[in-house]
């Protein structure tokens, strides 16, 4: 067994209690250890991605119990890509948090941050539905703490809503898991893929209820309409770097949908083949519309970013809902882009809000921001990335999504919705940008107090924009990796074999 597979979970899981128990009085030591652990995590995930790019999935049997009796972690191209993305984002966020002193505004930021990474990595790596639930809870309970970091009445009230919505979601998750277990007698994803086609006709209805409930739970995480309502309130009230980190949380929902509904309810599932498609596509299109209308209608800059994130989840899940290899490639490409773009916007937005004095993040004319050029430039770049204009990756991603929709029955609707909503979001971002930077600059009178731009936080936000540029430049090799990823998703026999089949016996 390749023990590196468990490191992305074990490393933060050890680091978090270590920070709480021994370093709690010394912020600088916490920073050093947290940053070092995050960088080490990035190094490990790069190694894992290189391993996974080799082709065959690798399985890690926890406690050496063979599947389906024990819980397994599975490293394939998709999960490697996701942990790598999470680690990249985490490094940027931890640099931003340390350099902008966000971690001074409350206690235990770094410990919660590490627990959050543990939950996210676990959710990406696990090959067991109930274990997925457990890691969801780990990442959620850490996210409650992170979301409330710094306190304040508005934040705590938003936090109550966030926790209630997610507790209700967890309850549904358990119902779904229970139903699936009652029908199939297993919770291992690979084993589910084997058992689902064998379910007798009498139990089909129950199986579908369980599977679709699972879709609802993942949709809550992915902020899919009509269960997206918690996101703007939560992310707008969360500390900015935490909101940037949460950009990966919506992707956990999207990842889970891709994983479960291509593996267990994919092409080999007999009567239940592509069960999610009929429900996911309309919901994703409505999400796209509502998210982009929200960009146009938002009254504060932070909410605008939140709605942009919802809109990008709409694009992403539209591509997922097509359930073809080409569309999934496009979806994964857009997923990477959307993570970078949302994180960049949240971080730039935080710097803008800090400099607008009492106007905060409200979209009103306010005294102009001193030396706003670089900030305006970063906002502009992140916004055109998010809105999907060339030359950044939003454009490439949307192009791939549109291209993959060709030949689908609902091609007209998908093209119309994506193109019109892109225009709407361009107008929305243009309105916000010109209001904050140009209109405010035209007001006579003094500017907000001159403050030099802090180097590292701007560099962190810039790194996310640079990430988008790099992704656009290296779109060829990345797409090659993603094509291999979706090809293996649509031919899961290698995955199933390595978890359950003859290859498992050969390994022992």
């Amino acid at each position, binding site marked *: 067994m390749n023990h590196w597979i468990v490191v992305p979970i074990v490393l933060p899981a050890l680091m978090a209690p270590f920070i709480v128990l021994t370093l709690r009085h010394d912020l600088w030591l916490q920073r050093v250890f947290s940053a070092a652990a995050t960088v080490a995590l990035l190094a490990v995930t790069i190694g894992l991605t290189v391993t996974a790019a080799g082709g065959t999935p690798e399985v890690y049997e926890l406690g050496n119990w063979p599947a389906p009796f024990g819980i397994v972690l599975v490293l394939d191209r998709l999960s490697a890509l996701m942990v790598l993305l999470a680690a990249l984002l985490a490094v940027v966020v931890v640099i931003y948090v340390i350099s902008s002193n966000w971690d001074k505004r409350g206690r235990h930021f770094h410990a919660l941050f590490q627990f959050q990474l543990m939950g996210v990595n676990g959710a990406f790596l696990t090959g067991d539905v109930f274990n997925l639930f457990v890691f969801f809870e780990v990442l959620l309970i850490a996210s409650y703490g992170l979301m409330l970091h710094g306190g304040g*009445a508005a934040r705590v009230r938003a936090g109550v809503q966030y926790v209630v919505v997610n507790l209700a979601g967890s309850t549904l998750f358990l119902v779904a898991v229970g139903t699936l*277990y009652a029908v199939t007698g297993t919770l291992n994803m690979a084993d589910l893929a084997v058992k689902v086609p064998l379910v007798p006709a009498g139990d089909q209805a129950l199986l579908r209820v369980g599977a679709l409930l699972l879709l609802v739970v993942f949709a809550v995480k992915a902020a899919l309409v009509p269960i997206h309502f918690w996101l703007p309130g939560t992310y707008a009230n969360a500390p900015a770097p935490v909101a940037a980190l949460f950009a990966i949380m919506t992707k956990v929902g999207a990842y889970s949908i891709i994983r479960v509904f291509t593996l267990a309810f994919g092409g080999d599932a007999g009567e239940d083949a592509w069960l999610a498609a009929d429900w996911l596509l309309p919901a994703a299109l409505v999400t796209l519309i509502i998210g982009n209308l929200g960009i146009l209608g938002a009254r504060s800059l932070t909410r605008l970013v939140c709605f942009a994130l919802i809109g990008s989840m709409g694009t992403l899940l539209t591509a997922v809902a097509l359930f073809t290899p080409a569309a999934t490639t496009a979806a994964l490409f857009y997923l990477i882009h959307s993570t970078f773009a949302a994180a960049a916007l949240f971080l730039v937005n935080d710097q803008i809000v800090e400099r607008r004095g009492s*106007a905060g993040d409200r979209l009103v004319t306010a005294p102009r921001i001193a030396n706003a050029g670089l900030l305006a430039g970063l906002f502009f770049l992140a916004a055109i990335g998010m809105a999907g204009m060339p030359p950044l990756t939003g454009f490439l991603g949307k192009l791939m999504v549109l291209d993959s929709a060709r030949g689908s029955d609902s091609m007209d609707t998908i093209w119309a919705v994506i193109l019109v909503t892109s225009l709407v979001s361009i107008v929305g971002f243009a309105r916000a940008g010109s209001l904050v930077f140009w209109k405010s600059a035209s007001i006579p009178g003094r500017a907000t107090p001159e403050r030099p731009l802090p180097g590292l936080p701007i560099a962190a936000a810039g790194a996310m924009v640079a990430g988008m540029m790099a992704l656009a430049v290296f779109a060829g090799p990345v797409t090659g990796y993603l094509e291999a990823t979706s090809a293996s998703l649509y031919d899961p026999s290698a995955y199933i074999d390595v978890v359950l089949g003859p290859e498992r016996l050969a390994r022992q």
Partner: protein
Amino acid sequence: MEFLVASGVGVMSAAGTYLLLRGRTFPVIIGLALLSYAINVFLFATGRLVIDQPPIISETATGYTDPLPQALVLTAIVISFGMTAVIVVLALRAYLESGTDAVDIDEAAEAETAHAEDPANDRAQSPGGVA
């Protein structure tokens, strides 16, 4: 017995859902607790209802009950207990900090907007508006 368990789960879920939709934190928390109880019983029943049988291998056993749902229930109980504790503390802090136990945050947002639109504040924020 099936009827008893099923109706127990049903009644608790119904009551929990109703309370969850209330507008104040206390009924919402009770609703969540009731829902999690209902789910625990439901999970237990997913391994089929079996009476007086051991979950682990024994030489004298005539049959077995499925041990996996019992493990799932244990995990679910621990997690829901922890989560309930978190939300109780959180609700208490929200009540102490904002002086209301309403779950809806629109009122708070309105209060903030009203405060921001207060003429005294407005002048400080946008000199353009004054001109």
